[in-house]
């Protein structure tokens, strides 16, 4: 019997719970936590979701195991059909993509993400780039952000390099306000912007202004942990909750889906040892 779970499993469960039933949901590539969250949701509370796999664009695949790279035929196994790059992005542009998972090497208070370049105006560090995030962050109805690298430890000089930054050097994925503070609504995009951010320190939602707001903590993290790792003044909901662990069945499912533990590549070594008790009060899914 499974008595505890890992941080990765906690994050996957928290991300999975942001998915609504009947949504068409897409993950990009290089995002095993999001991939697993989608497969968990599809097999628990969101059985009618349309799961579109990143890179292969397969519809509702049932991969035998998670692969280290995303565009692998394994990931396409069992798909009932396959879209192409045109159709997938058209779906989003027409407002049919219910949810997308996005991340960034920098994420600001409005949910803008940067995965393009660090350093401005000169490129000090070239990041891989955002794939279709620049488009999908505008078009997807709802966005769940995640990062497993929120914690900003002090370096040798006592400075912190924040993941949750005051402002992004480059806005790859649009959040609720652009670099000039112009609200997203002014652009008339199809999508409504980030709804949640799941990090290894906590869970955030966004307030009416579109500002990020701490909504829940892990059993082993504190408001102070979050504040000191966040590069802007924290907003906090009235009643901060505790992130619920996955059910035993969900943990079992994650371990079955990811025997190679690909998702742990996203997690920092220090966080790999974190464990959370599973006190299963929810009914296990059939």
């Amino acid at each position, binding site marked *: 019997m499974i008595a505890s779970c890992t941080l990765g499993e906690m994050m996957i469960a928290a991300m999975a719970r942001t998915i609504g039933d009947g949504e068409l949901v897409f993950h990009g*590539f*290089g*995002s095993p936590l999001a991939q697993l969250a989608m497969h968990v949701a599809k097999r628990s509370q969101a059985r009618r979701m349309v799961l579109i796999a990143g*890179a*292969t664009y*397969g519809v509702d695949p049932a991969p*035998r*195991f998670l*692969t*280290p*790279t*995303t*565009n*692998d*035929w*394994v990931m*396409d196994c069992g798909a009932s059909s*396959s879209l*192409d*790059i*045109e159709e997938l*992005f058209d779906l*989003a*542009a027409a407002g049919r993509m219910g949810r997308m998972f996005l991340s960034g090497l920098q994420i600001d208070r409005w949910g803008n993400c940067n995965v*393009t*370049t660090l350093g401005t105006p000169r*490129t*000090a*560090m*070239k990041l*891989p*780039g*955002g*794939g*279709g*995030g*620049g*488009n*999908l*962050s*505008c*078009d997807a109805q709802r966005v769940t952000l995640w990062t497993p690298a929120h914690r900003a430890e002090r370096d040798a000089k006592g400075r912190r390099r924040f993941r949750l930054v005051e402002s*992004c050097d*480059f*806005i*790859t*994925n*649009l959040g609720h306000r*652009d*670099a000039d503070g112009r609200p*997203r609504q002014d*652009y*008339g*995009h*199809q999508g409504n912007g980030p709804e949640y951010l799941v990090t290894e320190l906590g869970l955030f939602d966004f307030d009416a202004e579109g500002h990020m707001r701490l909504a829940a903590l892990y059993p082993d993290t504190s408001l102070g942990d979050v504040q000191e790792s966040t590069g802007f003044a924290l907003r906090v909901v009235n009643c901060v909750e505790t992130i619920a662990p996955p059910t035993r069945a969900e943990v079992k499912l994650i371990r079955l889906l990811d*025997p*190679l533990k*690909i998702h742990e*590549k*996203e997690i920092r070594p220090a966080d790999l040892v974190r464990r959370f008790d599973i006190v299963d009060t929810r009914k296990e899914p059939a």
Partner: protein
Amino acid sequence: MPSTSRPIYTETNKRRSLDELAAMVSNDAIVAVGGGLSSREPMALLRALLRKGLSGLTVVGSAHGIDIDLLCAGGALSRSCESYVGFEQDFGLAPNYRRALESGAVEVNDSCCYTLVQQLRAAIQGLPFMPIRSLRGTSFTALHPEYKRMTCPFTGEELLLVPALEPDVALIHAQYGDERGNLIIQGPPVADLLFARASRVVLATVEKIVSTEALRAMQGAVIPYFYVTALSGTPMGAHPTACYPFYAYDRRHTALYHAAARESAADFKTQYLDAFVYGVSSHEAYIESIGGDATRARLASWADGDDAWMRLYLDEAVA
């Protein structure tokens, strides 16, 4: 934008050698590299381009990895308009790509997948631009002053207009092709169908050249022959990326590549480029250099079942 009519290719025998294909790419061309991430990238053709000493290329594409990283290492690029270049969670950032773009040797001109799709569609439709709604509010509009805005005469809303993108040449690796140039792509076509339609010249390598009858009987996306300029039968032509059903992603070779690339440009030159690109005179010699039939058999073993497939990706297998 396309001011004149687009070419079609109707020669009855388009088979050429890999080096002949490489000779059809010019310095400073805008190049669309097919496939994506760890799958079906035209690696043999890219190695042939590097051996030829090509330079000044602009690359356009969606999500790529070792292909663009290798072109950066070989000094072939002057501008990157890719949407993503990296090794995903598997090995992380692309070291040669980073060096080339951070040093300024290669201009940072990132794009996004749908922007690319719409720009290619404009070329395919003979239009000067295509509208999109997205991207406004991001930093891409500042990076791309060529985008324009318009007020929609139907709705009054603001739209972004992205100009037609007509690559000079598309480089595509497909599973099958016939002499006339019909290509079959099995599995995700990524942007290859769009590249084939939008580009002025389409050069293809294929695992197998088969008859038109055999092609017709196969399931998969078809690129009709008249888009294709020339093709070469190049088995293992996507290695170390995957070309199912022939072979899986060679994670072991990619680990070796990435380890060398992480060190330094100089180390990558001696440890990788000299060993696998400049030091081998042909694709056949490359296949030998990576282990010949044994490697071929190892990478074909994915078909033996889930356990065999998984075994290819175990960290222990990467040594």
